[in-house]
């Protein structure tokens, strides 16, 4: 057998490098590109194949689907989107604002007649992407944050119909459960710095006091809708009492815990009540988890202060067109197909949580468990976050929560600091605007 020499290896490496570069530079003009978070997901292969076939039959163009984690997806779109790839972009609710400011996405207002199912979208879901007098994205899935609770534990304390809705009584119950059970927290939510859920859960409670977004456009600029009083109420009655006070709702070791601890922890019996969305139904890796979700879990609206509303954080996933694409019509066909009732039914077969609270009236809710129906009500009460620059706001929220849960500041001090930072924050996404 002929031995491979160093020269052969070098030649092969050179050829491979050249081929790679050619691959990067090349790319067929006939190929449409679609980036979405589950583009590479094995479970989603059938859906992706169906989408590619549907688009090809409608446009005669091949569809290449790529998966990215949301943070990578956003960065790649912002840095390279102007080159025209991808043609179609999926994302999270805060992304359209960034992309509009970067002049990367195309307004869809005049293209909606190309979407046969457009009239069926819920107005609230479309409203999440309507700003600057244009519609910037099509929604395809959504949810509202609610309270997920352990029925057995609450029944022990006489709350067969669900936990108390008033936050004082709620935290008292959570504290009692925590005190009585060595291995269970009464209430838990995520508090890990950098975790996107932390801000979503915090905002859910702030929205109860603003009954609308945190920032609203007042004609001249974005105006903060909450004051230190609202922040203090949330930081004091929830976040401080979570780990401090006479009767903390959770153990110290859960300070700064992330979503895994929250979601997986609940299904494994670690928490009596948590903040969550319909995806909780997907954590079924063990018999214990299945039993918990099928027999012992129910949903209610989030607890609130007596003078507050039932508002909560609304999450809607967008599909956007790259304004620099060389074929916007075909891109629209992708967005239309992926947000169609047929695609959503297919999505539902893979992830039932995706259509628990469908954003389209021709799609049935996947919720068949009566105990889970409160998710629908939560979605109806949902408030979509404003399309602002969230970076500075998020950091300030993390600071406030951390200072309170680690008892570095009183809730009043943290709330005052938070209000000051949010009032001064440069939340405008347009770098040229004042």
């Amino acid at each position: 057998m002929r031995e491979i020499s160093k020269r052969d290896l070098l030649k092969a490496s050179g050829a491979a490098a050249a081929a790679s570069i050619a691959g990067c530079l090349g790319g067929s003009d006939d190929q449409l590109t679609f980036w979405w978070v589950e583009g590479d997901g094995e479970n989603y292969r059938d859906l992706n194949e169906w989408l590619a076939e549907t688009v090809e039959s409608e446009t005669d163009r091949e569809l290449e689907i790529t998966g990215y984690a949301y943070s990578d997806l956003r960065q790649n779109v912002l840095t390279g989107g102007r080159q025209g790839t991808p043609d179609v972009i999926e994302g999270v609710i805060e992304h359209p604002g960034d992309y509009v400011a970067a002049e990367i996405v195309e307004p869809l207002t005049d293209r909606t007649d190309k979407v046969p199912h457009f009239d069926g979208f819920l107005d609230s879901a479309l409203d999440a992407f309507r700003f600057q007098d244009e519609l910037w994205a099509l929604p395809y899935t959504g949810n509202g944050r609610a309270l997920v609770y352990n029925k057995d534990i609450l029944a022990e304390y006489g709350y067969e119909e669900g936990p108390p809705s008033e936050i004082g009584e709620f935290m008292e119950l959570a504290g009692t459960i925590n005190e009585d059970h060595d291995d269970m927290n009464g209430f838990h939510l995520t508090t890990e710095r950098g975790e996107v859920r932390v801000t979503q859960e915090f905002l859910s409670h702030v929205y109860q006091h603003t009954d609308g977004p945190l920032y609203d456009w007042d004609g001249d600029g974005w105006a903060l809708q909450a004051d230190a009083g609202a922040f203090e109420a949330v930081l004091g009655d929830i976040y401080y009492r979570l780990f401090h006070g006479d009767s903390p709702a959770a153990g110290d070791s859960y300070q700064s815990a992330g979503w895994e601890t929250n979601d997986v922890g609940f299904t494994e019996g670690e928490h009596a009540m948590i903040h969550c969305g319909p995806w909780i139904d997907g954590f079924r890796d063990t018999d214990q988890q299945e039993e918990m979700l099928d027999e012992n879990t129910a949903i209610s609206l989030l607890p609130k202060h007596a003078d507050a509303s039932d508002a909560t954080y609304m999450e809607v996933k967008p599909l956007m067109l790259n304004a620099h694409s060389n074929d916007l019509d075909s891109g629209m066909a992708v967005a239309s197909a992926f947000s169609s009732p047929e695609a959503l039914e297919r999505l539902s077969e893979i992830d039932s949580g995706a259509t628990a609270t469908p954003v389209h009236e021709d799609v049935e809710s996947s919720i068949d468990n009566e105990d889970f129906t409160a998710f629908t009500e939560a979605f109806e009460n949902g408030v979509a976050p404003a399309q602002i620059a969230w970076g500075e706001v998020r950091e300030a929220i993390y600071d406030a929560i951390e200072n309170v849960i680690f008892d570095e500041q009183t809730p009043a001090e943290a709330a005052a600091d938070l209000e000051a930072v949010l009032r001064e924050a440069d939340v405008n996404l347009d770098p040229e605007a004042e």
Partner: protein
Amino acid sequence: MATSTDRLSAYRKQFVSLSTETWLGWGLLLPAALLMGVIILYPILDGILTSFQARSFLRPEIREFVLLANYRALVRDGVFWTALWNSAVLTGVSVALQFLLGLGLALLLKQQVPGIAVFRSITMVTWVLPVIVIVIVFNWLVQPGYGLVNLILAELGLPTDYWFSNRTWAMPLIVLMHVWKNAPFFAIALFAAMQSIPNELYEAAKMDGASAVQQFRYITLPNISYVAMIMIVLHVLYTFNNFDFVWLSTGGGPLRTTEVLPTYVYKQAFQQYALGYAASIGVVMLIIMMTFTVVYVKLEDFD
């Protein structure tokens, strides 16, 4: 007169020859120099230029000169100073431990005992593990409730915690992950350097009555110092600039106790879109690292 003309002609020939050789040399160097300029010099210069500008990640084509405003803001920014201090602590402690542990491990690997070859191979495993895998492993180990570390502590009746969220233990855990990953590489490099020391030196030292400690102090250490220096410089640069361990495990929390300069640059550039401000932090990092490298190389008489 004739002598002076001959001398002039010789000088001219020499000059022509020299200039021809020089230009030929420049001609050969030019493609590489151009390539270096495009892929190394230009990004660095653009980064330095950006540090004097207000520039958003969303619209990078819009640049506004603000002179030293970013640097003035940096001086007043408490988080920057926290991140700088944390970066220095993380780098100093991690590299010192990696070196000491690596040195100990190298001495161990040097022993001629049965099975040492297998042990040498196993030693390298942590170095080849991707950072994300290491972070996931550590993250699950310290999960409250079901993490192995906490289960053992609970079994022993000791307090449990989510250690990445503990203000006292978060940074030591990150240091531990760095050491766990990199100490074996130190060990292998130092072990290779030790292997190149002639055995005669040790034999002569033994004949002179030198103890094991004296042999280590006067033979081993001086002979591995060059490799050790390279390793230390490389790992100081790597650790000071390292982003992924901190970002994936704590995101800079809790209460910014693990915020380091790379995570702060990332937040400023990609979350707050402040490219100019992020670039000014980057320039500070560049100056610190350049200073460190120059001073260290001078001290060690690199030549």
